């Protein structure tokens, strides 16, 4: 999920960049040097996720996974996502320099919120509760990203309203798929490598 170069107006770009820099600053401050390799792994996974297509009916969508990145990383999701987006710009020219701040915001803010809402529930020993929290986390983060994206577009230009509504509409099935996948994935990690979930 990216907003391309050349679409937003400068006030939106500038405030996006300012918030993203603030968030990344907090994230870096909280990130201990020895945790950087683990953060880098999730950042790389976030990058690669956008290349993985899952089927939905006759079509397919690519994964986003900012929910799980947020759940596992907390504030460090900001630098992790910013780095992943820079690399996506570098490799595929998705997003870009001027939109880096806005795109980081719309992916990372939901991720961090996800961490605060759902991480404590996931750590509980109650299987049902943690799976439900996993589903909600995956779905919520994509939903919120969609809303943020629409909001950025409409703030930039009133005329973008229809495109924005379309963006939100497209994200509803994605939301459900991300929910399901995040749920199973959390179940997998809790079983196989609980230490990755943090404590």
């Amino acid at each position, binding site marked *: 999920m990216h907003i391309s170069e*050349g*679409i937003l107006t400068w006030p939106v770009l500038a405030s996006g960049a300012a918030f993203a820099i603030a968030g990344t600053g907090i994230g870096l401050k909280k990130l201990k040097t020895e945790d950087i*390799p683990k953060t880098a*792994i999730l950042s790389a996974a976030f990058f690669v996720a956008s290349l993985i297509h899952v089927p939905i009916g006759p079509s397919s969508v690519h994964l986003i996974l900012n929910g799980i990145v947020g759940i596992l990383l907390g504030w460090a999701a900001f630098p992790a996502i910013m780095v992943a987006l820079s690399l996506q710009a570098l490799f595929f020219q998705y997003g870009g*320099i001027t939109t880096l701040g806005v795109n980081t915001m719309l992916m990372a803010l939901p991720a961090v919120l996800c961490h605060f809402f759902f991480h404590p529930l996931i750590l509980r020993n109650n299987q049902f509760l943690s799976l439900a929290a996993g589903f909600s986390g995956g779905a919520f983060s994509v939903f919120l990203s969609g809303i943020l994206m629409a909001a950025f577009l409409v703030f930039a230009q009133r005329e973008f309203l229809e495109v924005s509504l379309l963006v939100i509409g497209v994200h509803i099935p994605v939301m459900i798929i991300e929910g399901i996948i995040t749920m199973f994935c959390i179940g997998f990690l809790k079983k196989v*490598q609980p230490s990755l979930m943090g404590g």
Partner: protein
Amino acid sequence: MLQEPFSVGNSFLHRTDPRFRLVSALLYSIVVAVLYGFFSLIASAVFSLALVRAAGLDGKTVLKRLALVNGFVLLFLLILPLTAGGDIFFSIGFLHIYQPGVVLALQIALKSNAIIMAFIALVSTMNFSTLGHALNSLGLPHKFVFLFILTYRYIFVIEQEYKKIWRSIKIRGFSPKTTLHCYKTYAYMIGMIFVKASARAERVYRAMRCRGFNGSFYTLAEFPSSGKNWLFLFFMLFSTFLIILMELYFYG
């Protein structure tokens, strides 16, 4: 799957100090992002195209990239002229094509492509060790650069793990469908990628420490400080300034 087709080359741009390229790309992109006038927009699109030519890149590959990236732009090109309201440009039956929508859509298309082409010519022409080096010496936070460089390395690790697991899933008769079994398989695959990639990340980091890594990066790439770098920077700033003047003269 993952390639950096633009990073190999021996053009003048490839040889320019990456720091100068990064800074000028950033300034130029910011200016283009806020343009409205068609004169300045077309001028910057032409200028970006000239940069791509100067970098001596394969035209086909560049076009492919541009086509891919323009998907999102296409959305605007299709929807805005129909929905923007205002003066009607022309009508086809009951479909009204609004003039402000057409203008906006065209502006977006020009801006996007101008910025992306400049990015390809100036930034995508760096390989990652030079980029890491550049970020480091531009004074970005140490932890950020470290994270950046490790992420870059692990992208290939993860991509490989992904391909390998996917192969294993395939030889066991899996075919993707919209079923719970399918989504569960994807989730397990992603979980396994996380777990295995973390283990490998840990080991790669150990290997780096065994070779005396202490958080700072050195590179074999040489970018001797030369007048040419400054000349390049001056040229970029001057061109950017000209575009600003055009915008002010024709639009402002």
